[in-house]
């Protein structure tokens, strides 16, 4: 792939295997292939949604992009710089530009630190600002996420879930990063709170021209937030496209199953009635050929033997399925 100015992050055949140890000598008996060869480009100022069920590797991708976990193989290029062979100092520099907001705001904030220290910590690590300057910055940032100055001197347990997630967002944006991984940022929150956090994230994206990787399993949230969508199944991307491609012309059988399975809060919404078959296989021992073939209605002999690769349908719409031509409308 050619690196051009439009591209913020390029991921090339990224792999992350987690060893499974067992037996009395704790030998590595097998690997869970959480991410198994993913190519992905994240463009500047877009929100790319990563969708899939638990265990499909979506969280691992987010963490591996930031090198919070070292990839087993493959590379991540951020603004033309390869993170995989960057030195510690270089990585430190690059990390200023990329941040993460975790799913559970009840566990991602240090319980015994004041909010001012939680939000100000990135500044302490990455800049030489004086403590007064840091305090001013923290105050400013808290205000931009809808919190007030007096909140600086409180502990996380004094806040509701939604407010805690605002604190986590403040910590992520204080260094003015270019890229933020949002790992299910609203899954632990109630719907009325979720709406406010989603609106806040959209406002901040405009204001600070951010790029988001939005990891979620809620398709309605995807529809509301995303520009493009990548659907993952067992460590692989099975379909990738603009939001409208994925919603109006879902092509991979898994995407269609997923869309049919996710309940839509609208009793008048008409959708395909497909009942998913079977359960998600063990990622340590994924099926041969196409990983979805054990649960797929379209499965043929070829699917059991040959692993499909991502093929272009049209425009920016890609799918990894041997039979997409028959399915695509």
């Amino acid at each position, binding site marked *: 792939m050619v690196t051009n100015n439009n591209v913020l992050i390029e991921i090339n055949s990224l792999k992350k295997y987690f060893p499974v140890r067992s037996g009395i000598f704790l030998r590595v008996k097998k690997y869970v292939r959480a991410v198994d060869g993913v190519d992905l480009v994240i463009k500047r100022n877009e929100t790319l949604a990563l969708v899939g069920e638990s265990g499909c590797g979506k969280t691992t991708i987010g963490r591996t992009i930031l090198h919070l976990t070292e990839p087993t193989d493959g590379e991540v290029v951020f603004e033309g710089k390869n993170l995989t062979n960057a030195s510690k100092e270089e990585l430190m520099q690059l990390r200023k530009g990329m941040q993460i907001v975790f799913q559970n705001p009840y566990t991602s904030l240090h319980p015994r630190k004041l909010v001012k220290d939680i939000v100000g910590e990135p500044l302490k690590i990455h800049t030489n600002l004086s403590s007064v300057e840091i305090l001013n910055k923290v105050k400013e940032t808290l205000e931009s996420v809808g919190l007030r100055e007096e909140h600086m001197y409180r502990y996380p347990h004094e806040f*509701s879930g939604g407010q805690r997630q605002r604190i986590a967002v403040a910590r992520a944006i204080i260094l003015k990063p270019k890229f933020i991984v949002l790992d299910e940022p609203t899954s632990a929150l109630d719907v*009325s709170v979720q*709406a406010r956090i*989603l609106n806040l994230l959209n406002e901040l994206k405009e204001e600070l021209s951010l790029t988001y990787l939005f990891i979620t399993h809620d398709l*309605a949230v995807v*529809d*509301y937030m995303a520009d493009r969508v990548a659907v993952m199944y067992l460590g692989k991307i099975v379909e990738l496209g603009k939001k409208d491609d994925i919603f109006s012309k879902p092509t991979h059988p898994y995407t269609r199953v997923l869309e*049919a399975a996710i309940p839509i*809060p609208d009793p008048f919404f008409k959708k395909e009635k497909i009942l*998913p078959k079977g359960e998600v296989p063990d990622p340590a021992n994924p099926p041969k050929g196409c990983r979805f073939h054990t649960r797929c209605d379209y499965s043929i002999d070829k699917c059991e033997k040959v692993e499909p690769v991502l093929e272009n349908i049209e425009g920016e719409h890609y799918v990894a399925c041997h039979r997409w031509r028959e399915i695509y409308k």
Partner: protein
Amino acid sequence: MEVLLSVKNLRTIFHTYRGVVKALNGVSFDVYKKDFLGIVGETGCGKSVTSLSIMRLIEEPGEIVEGSVVFDGRDLLKLSEEEMQKVRAKEISMIFQEPKMALNPVLKIGFQIAEAISTAEDLSIKSKEVWEKVYEILRAVGLPDPESMAEKYPHELSGGMAQRIMIAMGLVTKPKLLIADEPTSALDVTIQAQILHLIKELVSEMDTTAMIITHNLGIVAEYCERVVIMYAGNVAEIGDVKTIFKEPLHPYTKGLIKAVPVIGTKGKLQTIKGIVPDLVNPPSGCRFHPRCEHAMDICSKELPPIKEVKTGHFVACHLYN
């Protein structure tokens, strides 16, 4: 429609070190025969406490202080513990959120189902009749090879399979009412769809009644026929699902529906101002009034009674008085 279960003015409180949590503040609603009713609300609205109160499973420091739960002509709150055991064994079944925690880890699942049957029908747990029923229900909940399945322990099952076992156990006694408390919140979306389909199918096949407790408006919209919307220990609105989504009346219901993104939402999501109140110190009058755009003087003084505004559409709001 024939009423199967009638909850009237139910009040349940919890004594905590912070003070008394007024979890249910006079909850009233009816469940009709063959209903597929959803009870929906945000964290702390009292939806789970409602179901536990109906089953009389509220333990110390909780207490049911007022109200009645009339089920099939009897007030469950007045039954002796022994009589209530019989109701739990045979007439009302419950499915919980974490199937693996609800199953006994050291007993084979076949035995656990057999136990449910033998308790409900007063049969010996070793009788052939009981085990035939075990295999039959295992097949009915979509588990292949019931004989070997019955020999498994809970840790050998996936979450989806464990929930199927719970459904089997709940429905094998042919209860008059099935209460499912967040039955799929711990499961993946494709498994969730399978489980909800299964519940719906079996409930209609067995001609019985179900009450699904959930926080997910999507599940309500897709699977339920009627819905009870709860807020901070009160029922806000009751009606059939299509009416509630199309013409919600209560300001909270309106806000809730607009706050959830649906496919095709354009522009900004609407939000409800403020946060859910602390039930140790709930707001006076209507508990929603501090967050309500239409709050009037009376709202902070009097709790609005629940009123039938149109046939089958109930709302508890002073705007409709």
